[in-house]
């Protein structure tokens, strides 16, 4: 355990571990701002989980965001970094780090080629190592939410959590009729704290000079914030689960858990409990190539159906959210960060499909539209070349309908990450915010296929699914 912690700290970017001093007047101001009382300030300290986890998340976020102004003029860059460090330090002290650390952990661990394998594995364990609420606290919270003791409302309710969720924990239970349940319970008060913290983060980040794409970056931040806030609302997740069940009703080999709405609120979510193995556990059983290909195909088919026919982006493809059931079916869990496309976002998707079909100018038009580029930006050959390379990378697995795409080769994933990294460095980050979610989904599913070392007829599935959706 000791060496693990040491490894964590070593892995942090230097800037994130440097204490926030009062190097500049600006930094002082920011610090003062941070010390202002917040609406839920009384309980802020209560959730402080120590500085280590905070540093880890802050470190990774620093790396992520600083890429956005890598070429900034030195003075502005320092000023921005001072603000950013202050913001992230505050961010690091915030109560929901339990959730945020895990989110960052999951995200990083989902990209095995981005960080050293050992670090990715350690980060993926964060998902399961969050300190649990003891049962008496949880029972009291559930009682307040459902207006009754768990012992009265449920046939049984296990006192130990069987999984940590990013913003809560999950318990096995049964309905009074004996149906098997997974009950997800959110930490009391965490939602309001996140809302307050997000407002403060926004205040801290908004004066940052992030170059010509500043507004777009802030728009993206706002989008991520809104989506995170949406994730706090288990009622919204319940709606997505029901919607997904409906969309996938014709796929008998795919299961999305049913919601027990009478035992659910915005902070308690009672779902059908699926019996089987999580993806990593399943892979540990050394399934045959045929089985891995089958599961990957189901994953592509079901998530594509959600995407095209359901207009839903399943935003959190993570090994912990996928199960292979005892009867061989695929289970999809966790619809907390699902996105339902609005009209404009759907236009981006359909124009993208047209661009794929027609190529050439249509493809460039789709890219301009998706990235919301100005004429000047669209006339920048370097930027357009990157976007085109990215598009080609995206469509590559779909190119051949008659041949399975081989995800076992890490070169494909690495190439995608390289393009993504270079785009960030060059500040070609301008995009409609929905692309953040689409990219997370897109990378996520492909990385999962790579993790499964699967070969899959992605092109055929894609053609079938867009036809099914009438595109």
């Amino acid at each position, binding site marked *: 355990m000791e060496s693990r912690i040491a490894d964590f700290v070593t892995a942090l970017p230097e800037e994130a571990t440097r204490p926030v001093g009062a190097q500049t007047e600006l930094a002082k101001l920011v610090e003062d701002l941070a010390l202002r009382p917040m609406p839920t300030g009384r309980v802020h300290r209560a959730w402080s989980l120590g500085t280590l986890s905070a540093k880890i998340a802050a470190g990774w976020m620093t790396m992520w965001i600083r890429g956005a102004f890598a070429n900034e003029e030195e003075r502005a860059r320092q000023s921005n970094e001072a603000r950013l460090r202050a913001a992230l330090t505050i961010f690091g002290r915030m109560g929901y780090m339990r959730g945020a650390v895990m989110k960052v952990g999951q995200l990083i661990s989902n990209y095995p080629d981005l960080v050293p394998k050992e670090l990715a594995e350690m980060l993926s364990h964060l998902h399961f190592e969050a300190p649990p609420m003891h049962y008496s*606290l949880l029972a009291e*919270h559930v009682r307040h939410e459902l207006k009754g003791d768990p012992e009265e409302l449920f046939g049984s309710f296990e006192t130990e959590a069987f999984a940590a969720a990013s913003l809560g924990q999950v318990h096995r239970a049964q309905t009074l009729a004996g149906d098997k349940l997974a009950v997800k319970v959110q930490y009391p008060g965490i939602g309001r704290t996140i809302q307050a913290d997000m407002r403060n983060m926004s205040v801290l980040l908004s004066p940052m000079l992030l170059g010509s794409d500043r507004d777009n970056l802030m728009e993206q931040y706002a989008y991520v914030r809104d989506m995170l806030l949406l994730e706090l609302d288990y009622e919204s997740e319940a709606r997505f689960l029901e919607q997904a069940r409906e969309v996938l009703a014709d796929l008998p080999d795919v299961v999305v858990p049913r919601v027990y709405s009478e035992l659910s609120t915005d902070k308690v979510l009672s779902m059908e409990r699926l019996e089987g193995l999580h993806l990593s556990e399943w892979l540990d059983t050394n399934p045959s190539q045929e089985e891995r290909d089958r599961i990957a195909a189901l994953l592509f088919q079901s998530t594509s159906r959600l995407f095209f026919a359901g207009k839903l982006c399943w935003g959190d493809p993570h090994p912990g959210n996928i199960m292979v059931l005892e009867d061989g079916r695929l289970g999809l869990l966790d619809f907390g960060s699902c996105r339902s496309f609005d009209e404009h976002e759907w236009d981006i998707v359909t124009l993208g499909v047209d661009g794929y079909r027609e190529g050439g100018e249509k493809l460039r038009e789709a890219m301009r539209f998706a990235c919301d580029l100005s004429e000047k930006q669209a006339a920048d050959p370097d930027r357009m070349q990157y976007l085109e390379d990215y598009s080609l990378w995206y469509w590559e697995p779909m190119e051949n309908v008659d041949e399975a795409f081989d995800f076992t080769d890490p070169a494909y994933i690495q190439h995608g990450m390289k393009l993504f990294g270079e785009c960030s460095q060059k500040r070609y980050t301008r995009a409609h915010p929905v692309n953040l979610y689409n990219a997370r989904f897109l990378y996520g599913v492909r990385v999962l296929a790579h993790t499964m070392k699967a070969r899959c007829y992605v092109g055929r599935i894609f053609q079938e699914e867009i036809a099914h959706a009438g595109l």
Partner: protein
Amino acid sequence: MKVTQEAKRATRRRILAAAREQFIARGFEATTTRDLAAAADIAKGTLFNYFENKEALAATLVADALAAAQEDFGKRLRGDEDLREQLFLHISTGFRRLEPYRGFVGAVLETALSPFAKNGVSRLGDELRMEHLDVVRELTKDDPLDVVRLHLYWTLYLGVAAFWTADDSPNQEDTLAVLDESLRVFVLSQSDQGGLQPSRS
């Protein structure tokens, strides 16, 4: 006419029921002893034969609720809880019974249970404190609390209770978090491995 013990007990019960109803309906501050006497259908003077003032009435309601909570606590213990969870269960069970009185528990905290109250000033307050701490002593008997830690515990308890009376978060969910965290800190302070000791390295 001689008032029998049974009749006295009945009157006392009637006054308490009326007080409960009036405090909840009108609020503690707005309820006068005249209201209470009228609701209990007795003369105002008679009321004072039973209770010194309305604060004493409120303290009695609180004491009765906490006595009932004591029984609940024994039933709710599963037997596999650690100290932090046992203390949480003890306090939260009390809050459950006090829920209908949340509006005026603050008044009791300020009088009978105030940390500034000297021993002996409020017999009922002393009893409440001693009964509560007896349970805590029993729970910590394997690692007995010294006088400092016992005082620390009591201070935390009163602090959380005060927070609860004014907690306007949905379903008072912040109280759960504050209580849990307070107990975590307390239990850590009780343990040598708590990380709250100065580093010896």
